[in-house]
């Protein structure tokens, strides 16, 4: 296995820059590379990359392997997977990391089957075993109630990483690295799945997945009007409003607001849970939140086991006072 060496990170782009997940993967990749005393190679696929390879180096890459070609302007499964397959075959990395994003979820299983290796999806933690040098991949299983550590002897070792599970490095513009082109020859006439167009669906306000602050309500909110009060608080804190399953099932909130195993996975800095008891399916996907604050009248509610701060009381009385004080403090 001596020929497999180094960490490869698949870079994702967003609005002409590296997406946050790429910084997180590079931060994680650099940590693993330091433990192994190996290097991080970042594969960047796109068109008119400009400064992007340097940005990847500033965030921890030692090498940037780039495909800069108009054909690769937008993500397309067939040609992107062909490019990544080539990058992996030419470089023989020990570890390949991708984000648990729409592109990462699409690419990873294709690559793992093409390469005859295993990929662990949606990992929360990654470590290298000091003895075997195999990657220990921690995933959430049983609806978030348990964690499982996976290993595989097959090379390369592949994983996708949940967004915001890892910390990026502080960008260091003076870091030096090598930028190398990756030649991928694609016969455009032979592409079987062609991208016709990309349709963006605008979401009003801040997206739950991107929000630093989420104000979330549960069954106890009782009606759609109740959620209006949550919106006021969310607006003050420049955050987004979410919900557990019952409010969405009852039509008080749209399905796109649902957080939990069947909804969205979020990891904000601050998660304010109002009248949410904390069913495990909800906690499973909100427990990535850095700080949970709970308001619930039931002092035995599960959510208090996860929360950092809490108030036991009826939200209808607690929330207006809390909101007023927040308004005073943030000067809104």
């Amino acid at each position, binding site marked *: 296995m001596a020929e497999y060496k180094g960490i490869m990170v698949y870079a994702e782009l967003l609005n002409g820059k590296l997406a946050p997940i790429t910084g997180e993967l590079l931060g994680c990749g650099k940590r693993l590379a330091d433990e192994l005393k190996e290097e991080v190679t970042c594969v960047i696929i796109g068109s008119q990359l400009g400064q992007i390879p340097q940005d990847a180096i500033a965030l921890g890459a030692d090498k940037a392997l780039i495909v800069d070609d108009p054909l690769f302007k*937008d993500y397309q499964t067939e040609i992107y997977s062909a490019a990544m397959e080539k990058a992996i075959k030419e470089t023989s990395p020990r570890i390949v990391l991708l984000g648990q994003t*729409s592109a990462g*979820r*699409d690419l990873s*299983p*294709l690559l*793992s*089957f*093409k390469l005859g*290796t*295993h990929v662990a*999806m*949606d990992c929360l933690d990654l470590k290298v075993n000091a003895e075997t040098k195999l990657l220990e991949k921690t995933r959430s*299983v049983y*609806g978030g109630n*348990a*964690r*499982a*550590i*996976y*290993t*595989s002897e*097959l090379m390369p070792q592949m994983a996708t990483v949940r967004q915001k599970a890892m910390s990026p490095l502080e960008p260091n513009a003076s870091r030096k690295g090598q930028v190398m082109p990756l030649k991928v020859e694609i016969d455009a006439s032979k592409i079987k*799945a*062609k991208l*016709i*167009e*990309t*349709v*963006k669906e605008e*979401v009003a306000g801040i*997206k739950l*997945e991107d929000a630093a602050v989420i104000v979330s309500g549960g069954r106890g909110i009782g009606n759609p009007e109740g959620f209006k009060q949550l919106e006021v608080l969310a607006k003050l804190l420049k955050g987004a409003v979410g919900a557990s399953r019952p409010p969405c099932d009852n039509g008080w909130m749209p399905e796109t607001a649902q957080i939990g*195993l069947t909804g969205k996975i979020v990891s904000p*800095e*601050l998660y304010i849970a109002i009248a949410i008891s904390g069913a495990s399916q909800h906690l499973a996907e909100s427990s990535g939140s850095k*700080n949970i604050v709970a*308001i619930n009248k039931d*002092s035995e509610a599960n959510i*208090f*086991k*996860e929360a*950092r*701060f*809490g*108030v*036991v*009381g*009826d939200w209808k*009385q*607690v*929330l*207006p*006072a*809390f909101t*007023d*004080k*927040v308004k*005073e403090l*943030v000067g809104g």
Partner: protein
Amino acid sequence: MEAALKIKDGKPDTKITILSLGTNLTRDVVKKPLAMGADELVLLEDPAFDGSDSWATATALAAAIKKIGNADLILCGRQAADWDAGQVGSGLSVLLGLPCVTLAKKIEITDNKAKVHRVIADGYQVIEVDLPALITVSNELGQPRYAALKGIMAAARKQPIVWKPADIGVEASQVGAAGSKSKVNKLFQPVKEGKCEIIGGETPVEAGANLALKLREAKLI
């Protein structure tokens, strides 16, 4: 299933075969698609399939699809997030050498192509793919329809075709736990810190205001 039925609604001569893998599959559950309108049910059912990871599952399904033969379109669910994280569909496409489109919320068939709306984070991609192809279906495509009484009666008369590894030409060692490429080394429950600081006050109103002050003190707001 709903995606297949929608295609059949437009092209009534479409033949739908349902393929499922497992052990001790409950007949009432696996026959449900027949009641909804599928033509044929094939079960890969044998203890040898036990403990299959996505690799072993895809290997068995690919062998069965080759045996069934001539499918224009292979549809897969996006799969339970838990153990497999939706790898089987993509894996199958590699093993069968077919183009793959994941997370479809809409599928239209025209001539020898499928036009697919593929869900991405901030909208969707419109993709045109040559058939035969493999498409994984997002739950946004819609809830499966209810079975009509006529369908339920018809399904009751149909028997599933049951295949064991030998029937699809794979060795028992290629499937199930033996054919899997990963292992779970450790299973544990995350430690709950349980250090919630309860903020009090004379009244709920005071507690609410105190909470805001506490969050400011902790630099959270």
